[in-house]
């Protein structure tokens, strides 16, 4: 490859990456040119990896005391990401999933595993340590493959699961007596007229709390049939300012547009 082309591809991967990474990306993550998403935040498109062969059928193994894989999901890992949102079950609403500790959340999950190709253990040196977890109440699947240890992939997969829960699980909103929850106010720009000074500085996509705000924003949008202008009114912002907020984060933009598409509306650009 010529240098100029290489630089070109590097730059592309940089642009692509900064859309997901909050803190200025470290050179190491920035230099992962490969086909895999590196960010801790999920991409809505699922990179499928032909070398992964997920086990089907059930067998008891470590982590969560059970780990089976649902064969339908094995075949179409991506499908659930595109489903039109998942509604929260009656006894659990979506925001409370996010309040669970990692351990509590893990208890609601199944660990997917590799299909054993060969005897493993001492026989094998392949740095495949992919982890795939399925959140049983919602059917949401998150996976991580790019880290260098099983341990870290598990942590990344959990983080992704949290983001996906925020993006995918919709909670009912009472529009009659709507007052935006604090998590939502915190991600709004300071010029919002409903945002009190006690909300502190605006929280950006790289703060873990950002996803809580995103969840509340998507709940509102969903209740308003995807209308950004109606949502903007309730949030004390101009339609333009709210659109800019939505467009500022890739996963938020994709989720909002998916939601709008499901209501027959045009995507925000």
């Amino acid at each position, binding site marked *: 490859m010529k*240098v100029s082309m290489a630089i070109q591809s590097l*730059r592309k991967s940089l642009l692509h990456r900064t859309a997901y990474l909050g803190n200025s990306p470290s050179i190491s993550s920035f230099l992962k040119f490969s086909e895999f998403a590196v960010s801790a935040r999920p991409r809505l498109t699922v990179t499928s990896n032909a070398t992964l062969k997920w086990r089907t059928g059930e067998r008891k193994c470590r982590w969560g005391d059970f780990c089976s894989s649902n064969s339908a999901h094995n075949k179409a890992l991506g499908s659930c990401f595109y489903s039109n949102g998942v509604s929260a079950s009656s006894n659990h609403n979506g925001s409370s999933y996010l309040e669970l500790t990692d351990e509590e959340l893990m208890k609601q999950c199944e660990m997917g595993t590799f299909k054993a190709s060969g005897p493993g253990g001492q026989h094998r040196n392949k740095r495949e340590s992919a982890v795939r977890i399925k959140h049983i109440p919602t059917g949401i699947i998150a996976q991580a493959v790019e880290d260098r240890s099983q341990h870290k992939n598990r942590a990344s997969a959990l983080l992704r699961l949290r983001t996906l829960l925020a993006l995918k699980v919709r909670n009912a909103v009472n529009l009659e007596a709507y007052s935006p929850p604090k998590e939502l106010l915190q991600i709004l720009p300071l010029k919002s007229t409903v945002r009190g000074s006690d909300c502190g500085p605006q929280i950006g996509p790289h703060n873990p709390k950002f996803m809580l705000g995103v969840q509340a924003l998507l709940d509102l949008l969903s209740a308003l049939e995807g209308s950004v202008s109606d949502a903007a009114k309730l949030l004390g912002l101009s339609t333009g300012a709210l659109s800019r907020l939505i467009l500022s984060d890739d996963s938020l933009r994709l989720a909002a547009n998916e939601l709008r598409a499901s209501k027959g509306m045009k995507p925000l650009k």
Partner: protein
Amino acid sequence: MKPSLRPSFTRPWPCIASNFSTFFFQLPTPLTHARNITQIRHRHIHSSPSPPPPPQLASSPPPLLPLFLRPPEYTTTVSDLLEWHSWAKSLAASIGSSFEDSDNGPDSTLLCRELNWLMEDVLDGSDPSLMHKAVARDDPDTIISLKADVQELYSLWKQRIDERRPFQYIVGCQHWRDLILCVREGVLIPRPETEIIVELVGDVISKDEGLREGLWADLGTGSGAIAIGIAKILGNYGRVIATDLNPVAVQVASFNVERYSLQDKIEVREGSWWEPLKGVEGKVAGLVSNPPYIPSDDISGLQAEVGRHEPRLALDGGAEGMDDLLHLCNGAASMLKPGGFFAFETNGEKQCKFLVDYMQNQLPGSFCNVNTVSDFAGILRFVTGFRNR
């Protein structure tokens, strides 16, 4: 069962594990070491043909510090680095699935991922903004600092592909749990499956304070992985003895123990199985081991990265692969204190079942709650249990 195998040769190098910067320079070359170890294990020479000796690394200097620990003392231009990267990438791509088809080795997807990790280690610590700016300004002449000379990167990647030298030996480390363990030729690269042993210990000590405060032993510690994992979850309690017959493993384990500042908690001892535990018989709260368990006849068919490069002493468990596991089962009861816990890694279902049956029927009354545990691929991998009270 099996004679105590102690190396009869004297160590030809000084023990300098505490000196990090020179440590990796002064180990014996892999070749010398491999020969010594083969001499120790006579039974293996007769049971199957010896694997080819590790290739001599003609073009590169003697073993160095792991890449990520080296100072970034080399410089190069962004364009030279990218040129190397695209060369390496196309070399990896040219492999396709040929390694996988021949011996279940890595395919090009996995090799490309390794290439990214190599890049990560070689750039580790250098100023990220420099690379950024170079790319943003389209300035390929920007100078960046590296942990290895670009020339060395070419030769390392050639070793990876042409000689099938394991990636972890190339970069000198393995990421394992939340640890980064230094490894080199002569020491087994810890496997992801083995991470589970630490989880199992975690479960046990969370239920039994007495075990948490006790003495733990990791037999055949290799890089020190399990011992360090356990020491970290024991927190302020307990103590660990880590042993290995292989002096290179003893030194690498000591190096890793010190890197994690655990030298007050983990004592690394050299010797064959029970020998280094003299004096603590009946006092051990927990005993863990991932001993060699591959049947001798399977060694020649192993994936090249494993069979050609990893130490046979760490892999070959005798005719059925059970020599060392049985030796451990036989001695465990007298080593453990009443109520003490053990966990052993095995080759899979067959060995697991055999051992459970063996412990229950051949060693009646010694153990209780003998169980098997699967790894993440669903293969029965571990045997666990407790010494009867």
